[in-house]
């Protein structure tokens, strides 16, 4: 536990009757890039704001470096925030915006100048110091906001959907830059986003949140390959999810009965007759003209969407369920309307316990 820099212990937050964060426990490790990922309204921004001190937890404790911070005002905490819409002070120049944290602390003038110049170098904004925020592009504003938050040498940098307002190309570029910056400075980043792709590219660990609860906290790879819950499986990347019951189990492989037919999935800790979700990524779905042992998923090929090197197709199964699958364009395959059998490597599918 000694290496965790921020600890949330049983943290809850309600706005009136509305419970936004429920019994949350997280240990954020020193120097890691942790992302809070979830749809809007899942409580991720509220969690961030509680760490920053803008919201007070209804119950539970928040510790920074082992020290409880409930009693500390935002301006007394060693964490800094990069705001969603940058929140640059419109009446101040880039220089004054970045210098703000030091000026407030009444640092000597030459120190301020030196530090601001270092920051301008760091975010590659030399020469822009006299501009007002209005005269900057979105990406430039973003850099100023980061520089401004970093000048106080915070223990933790909190970033609230910082790239949300940028266009796709710039967002991708900033993702790389942010990750590089974090590695270089070695500061802990706590990053809030609803964009799963962004989370997967940048994070050391991802906490997937839904309705005030962390559904899974793990590395991007684990989250993608081994989702714990149906929500995580559906939210991260594209997935086909089937609801069914375990029919039989042997050698760590489950036979599952669903309304679309039977299928196989690797899994352990399940009983016969138990409710289960099976998740399979489109890229692992395979198609055959003859039935494959253990699978009974028949249907007709429906759409055929060409996307460069990949082709996305879907097959209509029984009970009006549609399964998506993708494959490389050059691979030989079936045409629209063909009757096919679906199967996959049971190792590639994920068995998820149904919630009671």
């Amino acid at each position, binding site marked *: 536990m000694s290496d965790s820099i921020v600890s949330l212990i049983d943290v809850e937050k309600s706005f009136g009757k509305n419970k936004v964060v429920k019994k949350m426990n997280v240990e954020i490790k020193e120097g890691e890039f942790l992302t809070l990922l979830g749809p809007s309204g899942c409580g991720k921004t509220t969690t961030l704001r509680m760490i920053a001190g*803008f919201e007070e937890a209804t119950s539970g404790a928040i510790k920074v470096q082992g020290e409880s911070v409930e009693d500390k005002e935002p*301006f007394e905490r060693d964490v800094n*925030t990069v705001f969603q819409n940058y929140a640059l*002070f419109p*009446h101040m120049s880039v220089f004054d915006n970045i210098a*703000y944290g030091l000026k*407030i602390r009444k640092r000597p003038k030459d120190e301020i100048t030196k530090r601001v110049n270092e920051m301008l170098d760091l975010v590659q904004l030399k020469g822009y110091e006299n501009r007002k925020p209005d005269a900057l592009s979105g990406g430039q504003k973003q850099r100023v906001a980061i520089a401004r938050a970093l000048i106080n040498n915070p223990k933790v940098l909190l970033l609230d959907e910082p790239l949300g307002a940028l266009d796709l190309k710039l967002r991708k570029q900033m993702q790389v830059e942010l990750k590089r910056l974090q590695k270089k400075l070695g500061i802990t980043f706590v990053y809030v986003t609803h964009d799963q792709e962004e989370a997967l590219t940048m994070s050391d660990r991802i906490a997937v949140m839904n309705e005030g609860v962390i559904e899974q906290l793990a590395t991007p790879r684990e989250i993608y390959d081994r989702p714990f819950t149906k929500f995580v499986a559906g939210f991260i990347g594209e997935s086909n999810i089937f609801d069914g019951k375990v029919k039989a189990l042997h050698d760590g492989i489950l036979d599952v009965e669903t309304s679309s037919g039977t299928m196989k999935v690797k899994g352990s800790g399940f009983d016969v007759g138990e409710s289960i979700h099976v998740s399979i990524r489109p890229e692992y779905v395979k198609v055959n003209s003859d039935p494959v042992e253990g699978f009974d998923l028949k249907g007709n090929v429906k759409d055929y969407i060409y996307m460069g090197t990949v082709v996305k197709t879907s097959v209509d199964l029984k009970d009006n369920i549609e399964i998506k699958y993708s494959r490389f364009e050059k691979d030989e395959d079936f045409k629209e309307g063909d009757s096919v059998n679906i199967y996959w490597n049971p190792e590639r599918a994920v068995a998820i316990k149904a919630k009671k």
Partner: protein
Amino acid sequence: MQKNTFKRKTLPSLAMAGPVSLWMILFVTLPMLYIIYISFMSRGVFGDVVYKFSLESYETLLDSTYFKVILKSIKAAFVTTVLCILIGYPFAYYIAKKPKEVASKLIMLIMIPFWTNSLMRLNSWLLLFQTSGPVNNFLLSTGFIDTPMSFVYTDGLVMVGMITNMLPFAVLPMYSSIEKLSRSLLEASADLGASGRTTFFNITLPLTFPGIFSSIILVFIPSLGIYTVTDMLGGGKVLYIGNIIKNQFGSIRNWPLGAALSVLLIVITGLLIYIYTRFAKIEDMEVL
């Protein structure tokens, strides 16, 4: 082709923008030009206007009696403005920090008294403070004073009337500029280490300055030209520029002098607006 543009463009624009333009030219531009013209004429023996160029009226303004009134008016308008801003800003701030639903009700609560006739509200101060009014009765009964105090027809009571009449015009623009202030800016300041006080002076105050300036204009200029407050509460003893102008077109009949005083007010107004437009756009002024 030409007929077509006429029908599609010229005719609708003439029909729509025409009436308002005509009205403004007839009843704003012309009278304004005419009053400036009259201010450079002189007064005849019987109160008529002698149509010959003269600076007589402007020279009269420098005359000590008139000059004193002008200074007194400017001072009174200045004090009213400063007090309205000082009293109004914390009030506006308090309302702006309430949830939107509550804030709009609180704003409504400010407006309701202003749907009572303004003269009757002024008259109420007179009733309250008159020689045998409630305030004097209370002070006499508690033994604070032995003889009734005379509040009525004093500069002090006029000031009470001015401030209570003008306060909403100070509060509303400041309220809307404080309300518009993004919460994240204040949070960013706190996040970077500034206490509430420091944030107020570094962020809130400079960013709500346009609202404060709107308030200054909306209070100072009307205060400068007001005569109803002095008439109702000053009983003819307290005179401001507004009273003097009114009298020149009434009993005293010195149109050029009244016109010159009006031009003075126009110049002061223009000057303030010019300064204002250097900070903000006039279209953004919260007039309502």
